[in-house]
């Protein structure tokens, strides 16, 4: 399984619906300080089921919803969709024979997050399971947040086990 597309609407500074294609090889993301590059990484972790606000540089989960600017009002919900290519048929049942799997997470302000997989309601656990079978996930060591690359080295031995467990 491969991740092929990320779509955001109302998530942090991405108020308008925005699509990032994830293609084979190397995709560079550039732009000035504060323009929203790291917000994209957080959107990916969020749709994968991240539940700790601190991991999203937020004090509470509602903080990921577009808070408004001097010229625009705040939004009432944040939504991120992640498309996976399952042409190799490795997804767990009931998605095994679907060539495209879309995971959507939506959070209304003041409400609770809801997940959908290919249009049908799902729990966070189902999303995490689906992504674990694809050898990825919100806490994957392969998603390195800004400033975190040195943290591996500074961590305690028991904290580093994660790398090994993922490799197993």
């Amino acid at each position, binding site marked *: 399984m491969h991740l092929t597309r990320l779509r955001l609407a109302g998530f942090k500074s991405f108020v308008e619906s925005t699509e990032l294609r*994830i293609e084979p*090889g*190397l*995709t560079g*993301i*550039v732009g000035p300080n504060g323009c929203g590059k790291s917000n994209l990484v957080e959107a990916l972790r969020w749709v994968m089921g991240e539940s700790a606000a601190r991991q999203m540089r937020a004090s509470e989960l509602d903080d990921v919803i577009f808070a408004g600017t001097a010229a625009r009002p705040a939004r009432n919900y944040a939504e991120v969709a992640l498309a996976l290519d399952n042409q190799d048929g490795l997804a767990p049942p009931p998605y095994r024979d679907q060539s495209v799997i879309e995971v959507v997470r939506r959070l209304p302000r003041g409400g609770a997050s809801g997940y959908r997989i290919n249009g049908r309601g799902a729990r966070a656990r189902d999303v995490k399971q689906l992504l674990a079978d694809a050898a990825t996930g919100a806490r994957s060591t392969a998603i390195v947040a800004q400033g975190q*690359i040195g943290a591996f080295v500074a961590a305690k*031995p028991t904290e580093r086990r994660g790398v090994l467990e993922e490799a*197993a």
Partner: protein
Amino acid sequence: AREKLLAAFDSVNHHFGRLFTRLFGGGEAQLRLVGHDDPLEAGLEVFACPPGKKPQALTALSGGERALTAVALLFAAFLTNPAPICVLDEVDAPLDDANVDRLCRLIEEIADEAGTRFLCITHHRLTMARMDRLYGVTMEERGVSRLVSVDLRQADSFREPSAPLRA
């Protein structure tokens, strides 16, 4: 489960040593399971010794050496069990140009060998030049992010926050 973990350890350790020597142009590095007889409970200790230096605690490594050591470990895990996606948010920030070049070459190889798709956020011109495609994030309207696809020449003009993208 224990055999699986031990097999994974051997593979990650093998790749880690190889990638470290390649990134540093010499030296050696290895992993050890410490603190517990049962591999399922043990922690992972990292030993890294840049070329020509005496073995020291990891904390004595420089900022750039730490980042490279961490990358070698990360990619060693990939070669053992490829992840579909890898996101690197400005990991090239502490590196000098020679190491940025080595890192990029390694990323290209991992993308070919393991099939992992990479998203690399960077301010480094050298890294931008090695990407297959570039997306720019702009905030022409203050506080509102927009994503556009750019080429290298445009990415250069990006460095001015308020500069509109030249078509």
